[in-house]
């Protein structure tokens, strides 16, 4: 590793971590969470991003070559399609196969867990996933023990190691050749989202809250330790970078306030606290609007999260959480797609003026940056923040 790149890496990392610790670095750190935009910018089709592991990495490399940020956005695909093909996974549709080559992935929402599965899930969720869920969601694994099912396990496991390994090697390369840290290490979920996303789906979980609330609570309790372990294991024990927590069903107004207090928050809080006890900070990626819950979120231990603002009232977030938690966000994705560079620039300046003065602030878009963002607007975000965001 050249000492110049290592120096740049340490500078960026220090700037980022200082803000995460609610301190004031030399400049406002820029961390963009980017998915499909990288493909467009690098000139790849979305199919290439989902299918070709090398182009997937190259797309992110192109971004850090051209934009001066503080973290590498990481490879744009969330899922490597060949892994899904190998097992016949049904719940995602990808560009180039089920969809045209530049269409964003689609999730096929179904009740992959049935109401009658709760007891088996609660008793031994790991075994239930193997025995009951995978045969339902992997066409090639429909008949466990058959030749094809055995091949699906071999290929699925191998593909996961390959994908994880390629991304780990890329992170090393971004550090050594470009001086960039990644923005996150590992991920976990809110227990309610684990249950409510892939397993019971929105309609199913909403029915369960009325019809079988005790089962839901028991399942959520079981999930706490699993979700803590998942965050730890996927981060490889990294305690420097935050652990990504994409939040779904907890946004207002999916649940009413009583439901949120009863079903969403208690187990999520335990997961975040459990990780924090092990030194792992959560990137509380609050998609949608979380304004009504800010006081509850403020109960968390100081610095245990970085609170990411999408459509949450950033003024209230700053008043209630600021000083104790780093805040990130919230340049609207609609502005990045349909606005003008001057408007983006003005928005960033307002964010810096109003929320970054005391440190503990990271510049980012409101949500993950996808195919529709304009290049000139991303450039405006980055350049304005670099010029104007100096302490």
């Amino acid at each position: 590793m050249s000492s110049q790149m290592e120096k740049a890496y340490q500078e960026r990392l220090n700037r980022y971590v200082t803000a995460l610790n609610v301190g004031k670095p030399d400049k406002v750190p820029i961390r963009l969470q980017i998915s499909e935009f990288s493909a467009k910018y690098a000139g790849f089709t979305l199919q290439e991003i989902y299918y070709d592991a090398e182009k997937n990495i190259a797309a992110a490399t192109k971004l850090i070559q051209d934009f001066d940020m503080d973290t590498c956005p990481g490879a744009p695909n969330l899922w490597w399609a060949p892994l899904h093909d190998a097992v016949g996974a049904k719940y995602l549709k990808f560009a180039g196969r089920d969809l045209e080559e530049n269409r964003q992935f689609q999730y096929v929402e179904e009740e992959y867990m049935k109401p009658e599965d709760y007891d088996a899930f609660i008793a031994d969720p790991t075994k239930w996933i193997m025995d009951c869920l995978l045969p339902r969601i992997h066409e090639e694994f429909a008949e466990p023990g058959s030749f094809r099912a055995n091949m699906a396990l071999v290929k699925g496991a191998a593909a996961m190691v390959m994908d994880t390994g390629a991304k780990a090697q890329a992170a090393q390369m971004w550090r050594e050749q470009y001086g960039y840290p990644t923005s996150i290490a590992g991920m976990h979920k809110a227990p309610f989202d684990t249950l409510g996303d892939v397993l019971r789906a929105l309609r199913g979980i909403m029915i369960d809250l009325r019809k079988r609330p005790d089962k839901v609570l028991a399942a959520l309790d079981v999930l706490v330790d699993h979700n803590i372990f998942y965050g730890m294991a996927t981060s490889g024990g990294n305690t420097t970078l935050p652990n990504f927590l994409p939040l779904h069903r907890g946004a207002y107004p999916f649940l009413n306030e009583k439901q949120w207090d009863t079903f969403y928050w208690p187990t999520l809080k335990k997961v975040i606290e459990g990780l924090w006890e092990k030194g792992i900070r959560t990137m509380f990626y609050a998609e949608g609007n979380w304004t009504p819950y800010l006081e509850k979120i403020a109960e968390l231990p100081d610095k245990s999260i970085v609170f990411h603002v999408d459509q949450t009232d950033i003024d209230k977030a700053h008043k209630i959480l600021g000083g104790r938690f780093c805040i990130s966000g919230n340049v609207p994705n609609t502005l990045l797609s349909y606005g003008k560079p001057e408007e983006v620039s003005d928005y960033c300046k307002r964010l810096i003026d109003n929320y970054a003065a005391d440190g503990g602030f990271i510049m980012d878009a409101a949500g993950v940056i996808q195919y529709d963002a304009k290049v000139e607007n991303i450039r405006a975000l980055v350049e304005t923040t670099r010029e104007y965001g100096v302490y």
Partner: protein
Amino acid sequence: MTEINKGEVNRLPGTTVPWNEIVEKMEPIQGNRDMIKAEWEKLDAFAYIYLWWWVQR
């Protein structure tokens, strides 16, 4: 019945579940077919090597 029975499949060296057995389930393919095929075949070749590795020591 998704099982491939002996004799039904021409399982050439390097294949466990040949592409032509699987492509029907993927139709209609909307984009670049060769890319999907190439990646299928790479993982399928790995599965083949996994099995034969226990024999070719």
